[in-house]
């Protein structure tokens, strides 16, 4: 530890910056697409019709029940090539992160809706509003507010999971850490630096989230 080579870090600084930008980009893409997709799957799972709810259940079970590492390798080498006619590590990372987070977001969505007191739906229905109106004007506005904290957590998880994109050579933060390690056969410098950057990203995000939450709760 005494011979910590700051000069090597300085040399790799620009790559870490580039990597961090991609990490953030992948995570944002993942959370956005994952949210849209997750809402659909969540809706599907809540449906009484089995042709919708069963596939949604299987989807969720698969993506929550298998390691993200398997998912990203499968998507990169087996799913993307037949579609794109070749591999594309960034596309694979975005697809994998989106599909994976969609499974978690589907559950967040469902839990958010189910956390709203039954009395809200009943009051709304007893005023003559139909199921759709009650959902749109009464249940969803309240559920969305409750979904923000777990969605924020999911975003943090995504930032961390995006590090696995290094395995398929997407040049995000972790990738540059491994490249640096491969070049100099040193471990502390690259990995501590990478860990610190991830920590800054996730802690900043939690900080923003807690601010947002306290603002929402006073509203």
């Amino acid at each position, binding site marked *: 530890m005494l011979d910590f080579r700051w000069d090597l870090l300085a040399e790799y600084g620009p790559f870490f910056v580039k990597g961090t930008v991609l990490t953030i980009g992948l995570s944002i893409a993942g959370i956005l697409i994952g949210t849209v997709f997750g809402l659909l799957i969540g809706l599907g799972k809540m449906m009484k019709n089995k042709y919708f709810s069963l596939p949604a259940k299987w989807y969720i079970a698969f993506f929550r029940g298998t390691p993200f590492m398997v998912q990203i390798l499968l998507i990169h080498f087996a799913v*993307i090539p037949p579609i794109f006619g*070749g*591999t594309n*590590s960034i596309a694979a990372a975005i697809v994998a992160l989106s599909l994976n987070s969609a499974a978690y977001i589907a559950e967040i969505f469902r839990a958010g809706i189910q956390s709203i007191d039954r009395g809200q739906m009943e009051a709304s229905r007893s005023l003559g509003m139909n199921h759709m109106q009650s959902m749109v004007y009464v249940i969803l506005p309240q559920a969305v507010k409750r979904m923000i904290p777990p969605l924020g957590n999911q975003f943090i998880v995504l930032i961390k999971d995006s590090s696995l994109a290094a395995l398929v*050579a997407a040049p995000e933060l972790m990738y540059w850490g491994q*490249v640096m390690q*491969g070049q100099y056969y040193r*471990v502390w410098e690259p990995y501590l630096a990478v860990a610190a950057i991830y920590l800054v990203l996730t802690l900043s995000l939690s900080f923003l989230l807690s601010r947002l939450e306290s603002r929402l709760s006073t509203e």
Partner: protein
Amino acid sequence: GTSDKSKVSSSNENGKKTLRVVTNAAYAPFVYMDKGEIVGFDVEFISAVAKEAGYDVKVEHVGWEPLFVEVKGKTADIGIGAITINDERKQTYDFSAAYFLSVNEILVPEGSPIKSATDLKDKVVAVSNGTTGQSAIESLYGKNNSKLKKFKDNNLAIMELKKGGADAVVADNTVVEEYVKNNPKDNLMVIADDTAFDKEFYGILFAKDSKLKDEFDQALKKMLDNGEYANLYEKWFDYKPDLEGLKE
């Protein structure tokens, strides 16, 4: 010898010491896994040369980077697995005399416009992270060139090429030739480029000032002279070794 060396090597019933050999078994045909067994040219070679020197060996797969950590920390006696001898590594480790002559080659799909290393400029090249193949490309086209994709091992790099994510793979000649030979249906071909890539020599990795180095050097020389090396080589590579090149 160091104090913890006793932990590492043990003596068996014939009084022969068993050495702990560490390797990265994802580097066919030198060392790789075949249904869970570590096999390859390097594995047979190290057993033979160790036998010649009066030792038994136990080969263990630990991965590429840990291999260096273990030999340096003397928790392993020997590292092997297509390890190129270079000056940087010599600062920290001892190497045996060269036991293999290698040169980087380019693996491309048949019909690729790439004919030589100069054609690789602006093409996507997949390599194994931290190998001499990577250094070779970086010395030609700049360090951390964005077209260079670095994977954990050659397997993933070749996979990337096969799936259309890279235009070429640069790796040791034996690795790419072995691949093409075993997978003719993949329609890949090998391009050699002597002007772009330097010759490289593989050595057995020892800790600095290891006593084993001399014993193994002598054993290796004996194998080279008595033809045992050539036999082993031909068994694995179908052609004769360039013994003169090795002795350079």
